[in-house]
């Protein structure tokens, strides 16, 4: 066995804080010590082996089996290595992570990538609200890194994000990119009402025109955006999975906004689906 595998014995009744289970925390610990690590479970503290069967050997990667949406803060503060989650996962996935990668082979909750400043999160299923957003009281949401959601995402994707890239292959909810400071969001399918509402800067790339665009966004016309050419080429170079972006053309309808803030953000609605 080349990786550490944590298999959930049964679905927990309360939320289980998984922030202690990261490669940097587990490095140098014996299997026996790992089993006796403490986890916050509801209002109580429990040992790892009371909820998980643990086996394998430390090598910078962790696998969580039989996961469910009660597991929160998975990969919190991740600074190296990989975490693979088989099953669903709860809120605050990858909170404050700085490096490394997390892959969820299932659905994820809300506040994914909250305050992340590096690394990559892949969700193969759907995700909840406030992806890459800041919690109430936070100045900013995600600060760097990549969040890639294969399914749909909820409302307010990238709320107050400052930097980084969020890719949503499915549909996104209302207020996508609300109050963005900067960064880039790509929605490959439908988005809900008022994308970019209150955004200061940043780019929201949409595959199709949303049903409602706020009156505080003004059309700059249909343009060949040199930036899109560069962006799609660079995305394709990042990962084989993103090679499909290389087929997209640079023509887009540009809306500048939100003029109620300072209007330096943009909605780019793709017009040419091929080069």
């Amino acid at each position, binding site marked *: 066995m080349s990786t550490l595998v944590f298999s959930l014995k049964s679905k927990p009744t309360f939320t289980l804080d998984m922030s202690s289970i990261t490669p940097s925390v587990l490095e140098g610990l014996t299997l026996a010590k790992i089993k006796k690590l403490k986890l916050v479970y509801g209002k109580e503290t429990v040992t790892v082996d009371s909820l998980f069967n643990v086996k394998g050997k430390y090598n910078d990667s962790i696998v969580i089996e039989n996961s469910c949406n009660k597991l929160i803060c998975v990969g919190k503060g991740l600074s190296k290595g990989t975490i693979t989650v088989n099953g669903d996962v709860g809120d605050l996935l990858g909170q404050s992570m700085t490096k490394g990668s997390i892959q969820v082979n299932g659905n994820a909750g809300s506040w994914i990538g909250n305050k992340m400043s590096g690394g990559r999160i892949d969700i193969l299923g759907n995700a909840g609200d406030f992806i890459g957003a800041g919690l109430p009281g936070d100045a900013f949401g995600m600060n760097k890194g990549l969040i890639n959601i294969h399914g749909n995402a909820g409302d307010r994707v990238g709320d107050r994000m400052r930097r980084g890239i969020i890719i949503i292959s499915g549909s996104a909810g209302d207020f996508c990119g609300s109050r963005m400071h900067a960064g880039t969001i790509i929605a490959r399918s439908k988005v809900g009402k008022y994308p970019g509402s209150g955004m200061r800067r940043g780019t929201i790339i949409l595959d199709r025109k949303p049903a409602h665009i706020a009156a505080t966004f003004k059309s700059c016309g249909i343009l060949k955006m*040199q930036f899109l*050419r560069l962006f799609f080429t660079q995305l394709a170079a990042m990962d084989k999975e993103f090679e499909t972006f290389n087929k997209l053309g640079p023509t887009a309808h540009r809306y500048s906004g939100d003029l109620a803030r300072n209007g330096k953000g943009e909605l780019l609605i793709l017009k040419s689906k091929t080069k």
Partner: protein
Amino acid sequence: MKINGVQIDDTFAEAFPMKATRIIITAMNLKWAYRAANALRGFATSVIACGVEADIERELKPDETPDGRPGISVMIFAMSAKDLEKQVPIRVGQTVMTTVTTACYSGLESDTQVAMGKSLRYFGDGYQISKLVNGKRFWRIPVMHGEFICEETTGVTKAVGGGNFLVLAKTARQGLLACEKAVNEIQKVDGVITAFPGGVVGSGSKVGSKYPFLSASTNEAYCPTLKGVVKSELTDEIGSVLEIVIDGLDEESINEAMRVGIRAACSYGPGKGIYRISAGNYGGNLGPHLFYLRELLK
């Protein structure tokens, strides 16, 4: 030592340390990329008066450039990173940014960086946008043709400047034919440039002058018209001396460039007016990189 009847002098070329960067210029098509690249490398023959030495390195296919368009890689050499810091933004701003449809990227990874878009962004007058993609920061500057995209910085590396050889010929016309062939071969070597017009120097210089305000002056020992007046290095049959100066990213690339260049020049032979190959040196006082002609041609 002789190659194809051409005498190879037992001497060496003397080169000196420089700093270099490589930038990638892309455009709608190669024609416009060349226009930008040619403008950028204009008046960049010698650090003596131009500040930098620059030339086109090679064409780039769309799959070799950051934005998937055809491009040109240009190498710029200077005596220090500070000189590059001064020259690169000015040159890119006045030549590449002003050329329609172009974009400009770094072509060299290094810990030492000099500003490119970092300085030029202010042209956007507050409408510029920064984007961090794939670990690199790019500036989007709104301009009248659309958008000028420029990477924030470009890498700087240690380099070698002033690799050279002299082609001693019967006439300038014959010397130039041999030099053109030599430059064509040198251009096939990666990581080197020949910054002078057409890659050939018609007025090679020595260090210093009788005039105190001049740092370089004509190399009278190789001037055919002064053969009877000064201590000349030229024999009676030689009527023209042309120099090829090579800057490169390392000694090995200059070695290779000199090797292929000299062999190409020698292929014309004495029958076509090429008599000798020599090299410019200053007794080993100018720089630490010495390229012995006979050794590199072995």
